[in-house]
């Protein structure tokens, strides 16, 4: 049970619901205990457990039975967030690089900055629920767009637009925070 807290923190950060996160920890540990013979020690136990938890989180979203909807027109109350940064010719109205210099740095340099990770987490949490779920299933769990769309309850056809919108919102949020290299 020494890993239960880290599993709980991970689950809670993904599903944003205490009860669901608690159930996921139980499911994860049950599954791990049943499969303990398959743990070969090539990775650490905690890495192995988080790997199982990732599948449990994806299952959780799939089983949530979100009704697929075409939300490309209204994922969070905005019609087209890109219209505020491009003019009618599709030219930038803002400097798209301002405050985002860190994103072009080496990934290990980025990941070592706790303050930066806190900002990213805050920005992720500002995304509308479906956008956040779709985006994290795609980017964090690496699901195919169609699978991520299905689990997030959006139509496959609108997923590409919504993923672009998620990335745009995250970029804008990070720019507002003014990340400095």
């Amino acid at each position: 049970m020494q890993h239960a807290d880290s599993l709980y923190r991970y689950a809670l950060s993904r599903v944003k619901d205490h009860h669901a996160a608690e159930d996921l920890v139980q499911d994860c540990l049950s599954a791990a205990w049943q499969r303990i013979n398959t743990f070969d020690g090539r990775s650490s136990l905690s890495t192995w457990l988080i790997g199982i938890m990732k599948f449990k989180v994806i299952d959780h979203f799939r089983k949530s039975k979100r009704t697929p909807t075409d939300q490309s027109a209204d994922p969070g109350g905005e019609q087209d967030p890109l219209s505020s940064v491009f003019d009618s010719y599709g030219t930038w109205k803002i400097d798209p690089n301002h405050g985002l210099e860190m994103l072009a740095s080496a990934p290990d340099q980025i990941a070592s900055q706790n303050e930066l990770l806190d900002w990213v987490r805050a920005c992720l949490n500002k995304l509308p629920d479906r956008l956040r779920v779709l985006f994290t299933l795609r980017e964090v769990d690496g699901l195919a767009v169609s699978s991520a769309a299905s689990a997030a309850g959006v139509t496959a056809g609108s997923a590409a637009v919504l993923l672009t919108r998620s990335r745009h919102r995250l970029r804008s949020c990070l720019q507002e925070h003014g990340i400095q290299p």
Partner: protein
Amino acid sequence: MLKALGISCKDAYGLCSVQMDRKLTTGESFRLRFHLKICGICQYLPKQFRGLSELVRACELDPANDESSDVQLPPKVRERIVEHLRDGVQPKS
């Protein structure tokens, strides 16, 4: 010629996002590369999209590793899980 080959910054921005999710068609790829060659403002976008992706992945794994966090499994739930494991679950042979 430029007009025929060219895409707007908005289109390039969209394609930079799309290529995170699927392989661009030959035409899309050509137009994007052409745009990035001639547009000093957009040239960093692909790196930024990849950086954002790395950052989000690091961020989502981080809560599990954050031992200083005060977020802990409630003791009652912990007991419930221990009981569940003790009573009901057997390792598969």
